[in-house]
């Protein structure tokens, strides 16, 4: 039986998990009501259970104590009995679908911020500052230690009384327990530091107190690191010793293992490996821990594909696979395997939109699945067929918004035609995928290609739709997702011209798409500071160009998220790309065979020059609105989207109004330039009621 290793149930403690797939703990950032799990939170986990997930461990970094702030990531607050009835809703919703649910509980120690909410004094074994959160902290006192141990036990009790199936003690990502473990952070000389036993003591007391509180019929696991990857931190051998030491108590029901420490920007990027990493890069660390413990081991990190999961489980490296982002992208992944619809699984591409939002304190969303974590609003993962009339829907533009619009309309049962001027689907995704380390983003397009073929959407590739072509099809609905073009014409001083022979600047699209050959000595001016500038720099450097990337913002790539800018930086520094900030592109002019770029310091107004052979400008996108205005006046709704209905996830009123002619909607960048998620979200919420 295919995937039999995935579907082999397993006992954790006294709990039977129906399969080997886990959604591991992550901050959802939408338990917004003072740390109480909201309707949104419950529906998010219910959807995973409905989709077949065996075990969800919710509430990454959920706090047990009042002085471990929960507000920054809206994590769950287990420091109060108020949480118990909320847990009951959550537990029922998941159990109803045969899933199991546990929660990660922790005290963050120094790994937080103090400048908000209760203005807490953060705590750490030796008061050493944490760089990622810029957090200073107090040296923890004996009284604090015993108070927090008691808080852990009470938090576990609340989880049990709330009907959850277990708790995971977080001793990973430099939370308080592993702050005590790591000699890099724990410099104490009392009974809580120094020797191995002393460093282990805090975690051991927590474990004992929790187990004493909840008894044997409640799962208690530990999430640990497999190797901190710091010379002065815990090595893999250290971690094996630690795991064996706790395992020997017989009180730990499972270990979750993560490769890499987490208290620097560079190590943090390892923890949630983005698309630049190979599959399961740290499996060997988890397998090493499995060698020395007697209970099941869970491992998550870049396990995205059911075949990969089957291979890992069949090989016996670990007992359960965490497929967390995989199920953020497609909470119905397991159900689709069971339905024989593996090709229909929307696979995570490692864009890390989810986790990068989390690190900005924003709710976790999926770059390619707009329904995820919006289940409570009624946005569907499985689109039901319409019971209304079958409509002729014409979509213009095969980027993410257009592809989603075509997919959703086709799932609704309509007759859908999609026009794309390029020879292939994908839009800007196709361009983005050309950069080194970014090729996997094309997975978004790959899924749509399969889905649109399965749904028999009439694809007109290499065809630029004009007004006459569209009207010839006698559409009921026209959806424009025509995107835009690089905005190089903003400042005439840059010397942009539509004639490539005359233009002094080119766009990142020109570079990445291969339309313009890479120069040898290139200046990139990137005022946007997102992926495209860094990607172009990485691409050009990869082709052997000398590259300087300049921005007027704080630093190049400033708007790229916390798990992704480090992997760009690794590559750019290695290729000796120069990164400069605070400089505006004032003017470009030709001099001899070369170009001179004049840069102006934002703060002093001083001008400086660069002599290069290519100037690349990244200044965002301007919408392509021509077709929209050609059609607008003829359309029944004059191209207008009812915003009240849109934001309330209600059907567009014009869909149910009678009348002649077609309805016109536009979405994505051809309305206003935003990102992939925005385009897909627009498409889903407009088209789901067609």
């Amino acid at each position: 039986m295919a995937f039999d290793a995935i579907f082999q149930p397993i006992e954790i403690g006294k709990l039977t998990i129906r399969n080997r797939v886990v959604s591991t703990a992550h901050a959802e950032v939408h338990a917004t009501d003072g740390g109480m799990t909201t309707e949104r939170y419950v529906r998010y986990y219910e959807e995973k259970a409905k989709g077949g997930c065996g075990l969800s461990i919710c509430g990454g970094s959920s706090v047990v104590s009042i002085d471990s702030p929960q507000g920054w990531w809206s994590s769950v607050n287990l420091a109060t009995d108020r949480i118990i009835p909320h847990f009951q809703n959550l537990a029922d919703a998941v159990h109803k679908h045969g899933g199991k649910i546990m929660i990660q509980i922790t005290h963050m120690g120094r790994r937080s911020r103090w400048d908000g909410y209760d203005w807490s004094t953060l705590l750490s074994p030796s008061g050493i500052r944490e760089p990622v959160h810029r957090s200073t902290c107090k040296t923890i006192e004996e009284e604090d230690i015993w108070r927090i141990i008691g808080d852990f036990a009470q938090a576990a009790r609340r989880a049990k009384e709330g009907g959850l199936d277990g708790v995971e003690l977080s001793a990973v990502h430099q939370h308080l327990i592993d702050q005590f473990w790591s000699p890099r952070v724990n410099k104490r000389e009392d009974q809580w530091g120094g020797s191995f036993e002393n460093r282990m003591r805090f975690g051991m007391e927590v474990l004992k107190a929790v187990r004493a509180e909840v008894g044997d019929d409640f799962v208690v696991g530990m999430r640990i690191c497999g190797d901190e990857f710091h010379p002065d931190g815990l090595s893999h051998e250290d971690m094996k010793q630690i795991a064996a030491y706790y395992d020997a108590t017989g009180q730990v029901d499972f270990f979750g293992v993560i490769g890499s420490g987490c208290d620097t920007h560079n190590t943090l990027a390892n923890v949630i490996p983005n698309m630049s990493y190979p599959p399961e890069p740290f499996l060997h660390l988890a397998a090493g821990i499995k060698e020395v413990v007697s209970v099941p081991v869970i491992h998550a990190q870049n396990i995205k594909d059911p075949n990969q999961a089957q291979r890992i489980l069949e090989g016996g490296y670990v007992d359960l696979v965490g497929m967390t982002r995989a199920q953020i992208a497609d909470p119905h992944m397991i159900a689709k395997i069971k339905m024989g619809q593996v090709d229909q699984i929307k696979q995570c591409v490692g864009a890390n939109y989810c986790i990068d939002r989390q690190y900005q304190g924003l709710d976790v969303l999926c770059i390619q699945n707009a329904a995820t974590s919006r289940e409570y609003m009624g946005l569907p993962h499985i689109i039901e067929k319409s019971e209304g009339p079958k409509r002729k829907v014409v979509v213009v533009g095969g980027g993410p918004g257009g592809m989603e619009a075509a997919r959703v309309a086709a799932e609704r049962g309509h007759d859908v035609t999609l026009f794309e001027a390029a020879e292939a689907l994908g839009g800007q995704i196709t361009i983005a995928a050309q950069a080194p380390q970014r090729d996997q983003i094309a997975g978004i397009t790959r899924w749509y290609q399969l889905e649109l073929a399965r749904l028999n959407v009439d694809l007109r590739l290499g065809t630029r739709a004009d007004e006459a072509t569209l009207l010839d099809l006698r559409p009921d609905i026209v959806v424009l997702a025509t995107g835009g073009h690089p905005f190089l014409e903003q400042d005439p001083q840059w010397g942009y011209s539509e004639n490539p022979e005359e233009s002094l600047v080119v766009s990142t699209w020109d570079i990445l798409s291969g339309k313009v050959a890479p120069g040898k000595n290139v200046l990139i001016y990137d005022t946007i500071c997102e992926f495209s500038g860094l990607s172009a720099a990485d691409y050009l450097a990869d082709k052997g160009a000398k590259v300087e990337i300049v921005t007027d913002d704080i630093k190049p790539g400033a708007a790229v998220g916390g798990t992704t800018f480090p992997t760009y930086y690794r590559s750019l520094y290695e290729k000796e790309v120069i990164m400069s900030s605070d400089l505006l592109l004032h003017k470009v002019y030709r001099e001899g065979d070369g170009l001179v770029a004049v840069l102006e310091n934002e703060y002093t107004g001083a001008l400086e020059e660069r002599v290069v052979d290519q100037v690349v400008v990244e200044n965002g996108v301007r919408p392509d609105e021509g077709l929209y205005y050609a059609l607008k006046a003829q359309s029944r709704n004059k191209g207008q989207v009812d915003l009240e209905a849109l934001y309330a996830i209600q059907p567009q009123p014009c869909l149910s109004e009678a009348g002649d002619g077609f309805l016109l909607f536009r979405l994505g960048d051809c309305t206003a330039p935003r990102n992939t998620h925005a385009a897909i979200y627009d498409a889903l919420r407009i088209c789901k009621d067609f």
Partner: protein
Amino acid sequence: MLETLLPILIFSALGVAVIGAWRRVRLWRQGRPSAVPLLKGLAAMPRRYLVDLHHVVGRDKVMSNTHVATAGGFVAAAVLMTLVHGLGLANPWLGGLLLLASATMFVGSLFVARRRRNPPARLSRGPWMRLPRSLMAFSLGVFAITLPAVGILPAGFGHWLLGLLLAAVVAWGLAEMVVGMTWGGPMKHAFAGALHLAFHRRPERFSTKAGGEGRSTGLKALDLEDPSAPLGVETPADFTWNQLLGFDACVQCGRCEAVCPAFAAGQPLNPKKLIQDMVVGMAGGSDAHYAGSPHPSQGLGGKPVGEHHGTPHGPIVAREGKALVDAETLWSCTTCRACVEECPMMIEHVDAIVDMRRFLTLERGETPNKAPEVLDNLIATDNPGGFAPGARMHWAADLDLPLIADLQQVDVLLWLGDGAFDMRNQRTLRALVKVLRAAGVDFAVLGNEERDSGDVARRLGDEATFQSLARRNIATLAQYRFQHIVTCDPHSFHVLGNEYGELGGHYRVYHHSTYIAELYESGRLAFRPWKGGSVTYHDPCYLGRYNGEYEAPRNVLRALGIQVSEMERSGFRSRCCGGGGGAPITDIPGKRRIPDMRMNDVEATGASLVAVGCPQCTAMLEGVVDAGAEVRDIAELVADALVARPAVGAFDATRRPQAEEVI
């Protein structure tokens, strides 16, 4: 002159016929003994003929009436003729009746002639083509010679040459109709057929006056303890004598051929030809005189006749080269019973095929293709897929299914079948669990104590493995108390209900569609109205033809608000999905695939969904590439339509809501 000639002709014909009968009986007696009550059988024969046989024949009204006229006319004419012309009882009343009888027969023979003018492909040619003329000769001849007997024509009318001509015509008629009955020829069917009805090896398949249903579809067990009993059938003489008699009754009407899915798919099996092969073997000789459609053959129109030959005591299937039948012919059968259902002569094709398969599997170990692997799996793991026996309940890890071992006593034992290992069927099982729970049924499962029912092993001829599985299942079931067994697998349903009895296991078994229909009728289930598109229903062979359950699944669909668009081949004429009898395992190639044909049947109704009630059918039909219709089990449709139960009450940390997800 005729007065002298006719008695001589009549009594010589009868005399020769008696000798022929004796020779024919000797052929049948080559077979092994079979304990059937002879006198009781003879007594039951008229009813079996008039009720059961005519029930089948009557499906074709024209042919039925034709046969009534021809055969009825003939039997009456033959008796009256013996009285009037043989014994010289020249009573005008008898003569009048004889005229009427022969006239009726003549009318019938006109219809026979009409059918033979442009006969459908399923009908055999050869001697059968002369039958209408023989019938006319007999009926016209008898009519003519009887005219003087009633005084319509004067005695001694006409020239003596005319008399001689009439005598010759009557002699022709007698030769075909009386002598031919026992010596061979088309009329053999009347003699063999009548005795076959009387001595049928499945007397229980006939209806009774008391209203008995008359169904007997379970295979008969081999006595593995008896060292003298052969393991299956190697030679024609290894059949029981009444099986041989049954083969001899074949009228070569080809109704079996017309409904056989393997034949339609171009696999090398024509059930009619197979029966004729047995007749050839019983008498010894070659199939050169066979005049019907041959067994299909890849690349050729069909296997050429004249190349196969056999003797009563020679092997049916050669170890090398050709004998009476090629092994692939036997392995093409899906055991769907369409042939048996259609056979007006009540011949048991499937029994014969399995008998011959038993020999090939048990004595020669020549089960083809994947079958040895499947049988090895069954021996080693108690399931055909060779899955770890402990994995049988993995699909239900989140359902908290009660184990009967824990409860000892329940109303319903839910028999899972080996679909428990199949991801597709697990959805059906989960749906069924949801339905049972919604109806508040007290049920439990055997869990890992369950074993394969033995269906596939038995149909592949491995009677030993079947009996081993069956006896162990029976021993397991004997430990527990339950009212009845419910299963979503018609094969388990059939084997548990109809084949375990002979080995000591007697249970009331329900197919889930029957059980769901009863739950609905007793008000324990409520459904949302159907919103989907048009639906057709595919009758699983082992539910329909094997067990006569055609209505319950349709009742359930009706209860869901579905109006079934019936396929042309539905109900007792349903076409097999191709999945029975181990056919997907032996996998004999043909020109098309049976499930493809079945999905074409589905698509011809315009249905967007085909409802099924069998894991095997689901697998076969879903395996069709680019099929236009969705395949769903009835349990899934019911589970989808269940009206949600009222919300649960106050939270209780010790109570877990029961998982009800279907996927």
